[in-house]
């Protein structure tokens, strides 16, 4: 796949000067490589058009849209509740958070309140989702680093335990469709809560085991420290959120900033990075998991009894008053927002998702310039994208 000087490039989309004059015999032409959409490192159907000088990236163009499933258009033609299963399929690693973000927007639009027990359940499920997401991310990141599946086996072992809980509660492993406007769908049994609490109590020992194998690893340190540095100024300007932003040292977490749900009642800290490199982004995930465990333990201690649905909320014939609302929360990947515009009909007039994965991806080129191709794979892995959310 060599883009030579005179012949037209097989990747016609690349613009600008892609070919450089040969200055010395040791430097050839620039090389255009299309990574993806079928590539083991791109986490789904994502393509990077990379221009290389030797092995060093001089230009990178992310190409997406290979999984554009018309989520927003379909939602505008479906009832409010009918969109809930579709939100599962946005970020399919963390469906509980996505459900909650959508429910949050609709509750804002319709002026519904949520009972205390449901608020606690939402936090429990969102934080369990964060554990699933981060543990999978770390597994995939090490896959990208070249450890060929082993850390992923550990990660998926833990994921399966949590996924089993989701299945016991909602009936589905991945696509939970659990949150409702004004509450939750199913009340967990005491056995479920006991099992979940046991899992959470055992989670730190798993993290210790996992970290003892990964964090201090010499190859890992060499491959990630100082790689893919992200300047906080750049990150803020690009609207980057979530662990990627906090790895650059910006203290911005919607759980603290917005204080949605009952998060202000919880005692937890926000981990921050210093360098904004891939290693910090990895550590951010590990530290966030430890904080999530704290939140979960507190939630299990304080979970009140009571109803799980707002009695005023009705599922059938749901027609919110005309108006608009934007509901957002800190999903495992960053600020996930839903913008809804209602004209009083059973389906939203305009429905828009603010996907954290897509916006975190915008600075991929800045992070990758000057690094090698192998590093681009790792940097992409550390950003944590899910293509269902990027392309929608």
């Amino acid at each position, binding site marked *: 796949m060599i883009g030579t000087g005179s012949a037209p490039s097989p990747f016609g989309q690349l613009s600008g000067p892609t070919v450089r004059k040969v200055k010395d015999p040791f430097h050839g032409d620039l090389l255009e490589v299309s990574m993806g*959409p*079928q*590539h*083991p490192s791109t986490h*789904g*159907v994502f393509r990077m058009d990379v221009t290389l000088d030797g092995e060093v990236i001089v230009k990178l163009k992310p190409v997406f*849209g*290979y*999984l*554009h*499933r*018309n*989520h927003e*258009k*379909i939602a505008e*033609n479906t009832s409010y509740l009918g969109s809930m*299963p*579709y939100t599962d*399929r946005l970020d*399919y*690693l963390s469906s509980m958070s996505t459900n909650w973000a959508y429910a949050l927007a609709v509750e804002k639009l319709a002026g519904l309140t949520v009972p205390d027990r449901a608020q606690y359940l939402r936090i429990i499920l969102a934080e369990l989702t964060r554990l699933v997401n981060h543990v*999978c991310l770390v597994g995939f990141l090490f896959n990208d680093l070249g450890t060929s*599946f082993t850390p*992923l*086996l550990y990660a*998926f*072992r833990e*994921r*399966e335990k949590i996924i089993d809980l989701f299945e016991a509660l909602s009936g589905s*492993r*991945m*696509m939970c469709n659990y949150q409702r406007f004004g509450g939750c769908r199913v009340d967990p049994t005491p056995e479920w809560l006991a099992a979940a609490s046991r899992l959470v109590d055992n989670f730190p020992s798993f993290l210790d085991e996992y970290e003892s194998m990964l964090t201090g690893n010499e190859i890992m340190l060499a491959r990630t420290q100082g790689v893919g540095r992200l300047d906080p100024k750049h990150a803020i300007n690009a609207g980057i959120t979530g662990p990627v932003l906090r790895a650059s040292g910006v203290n911005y977490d919607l759980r603290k900033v917005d204080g949605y749900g009952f998060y202000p009642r919880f005692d937890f800290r926000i981990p921050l990075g210093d360098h904004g490199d891939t290693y910090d982004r990895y550590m951010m995930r590990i530290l966030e998991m430890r904080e999530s465990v704290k939140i979960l333990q507190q939630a299990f201690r304080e979970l009140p009894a009571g109803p799980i649905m707002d009695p005023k909320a009705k599922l059938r014939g749901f027609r919110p008053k005309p108006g608009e609302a934007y509901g957002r929360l800190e999903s495992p990947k960053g600020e996930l927002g839903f913008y809804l515009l209602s004209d009083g009909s059973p389906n939203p007039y305009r429905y828009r998702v603010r996907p954290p994965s897509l916006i975190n991806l915008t600075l991929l080129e800045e992070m990758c310039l000057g690094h090698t191709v192998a590093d681009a794979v790792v940097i992409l892995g550390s950003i944590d994208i899910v*293509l*269902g959310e990027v392309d929608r």
Partner: protein
Amino acid sequence: MSTADNTRAPDPFPAAGNISDDEREELRRHGILMTSLEELYNWGRSNSIWPIQFGLACCAIEMIAAATARFDIARFGAEIFRPSPRQADLMIVSGTVTKKMAPQVVRLWNQMPEPKYCIAMGACAISGGPFKQGYNVLKGIDRFLPVDIYIPGCPPRPEALLNGLMQLQKKIRGEHLTGPDAARHTRADVPGEFPVPTFGEHDLEPTRNPEVWTPPAPITRSGKG
């Protein structure tokens, strides 16, 4: 299958065909294994299916889960996910195929060497699934590729994928190398590669592969096709 067996031409190389199963079992007890080349070939192929490492959407996560320790697809000899289509025998279409992605899927299929098989995993790959009404979603990969096994579910559980794989193994074991019902990859008249559609202005061009899929006849009011 029964009608096909009746019309089957006599095996030109009856290696194991002229002794009964009881006799074979008796010989096996004495340490002598009798088999036909066809059986041996199918046995070997069905137990080392290498899928292409190719995840499209949500179902890909369950495909990965099927490869991990709990479900362990390695028990069925299919754990070697090859990133290159040139080394793969099986394409698991795991997720929504959009119109932008469909040409690449067909191209990957063309690049796979024969014998090759295709599993449509999940509602989206079968028919478009929940996203069927979308303007950018292909309504089933079987419009372009010959699908061997369909696995319903959204997403199917890893157990369902394993079951699908076992069904495929059964299918492979029943294949013949010669005769009128010979396997697809042994026949010169059945194509293994298909024209790659282009991502046109309004839709894929062409919208389907007529060699693989024709639209069902419309249902009339009287109910007769």
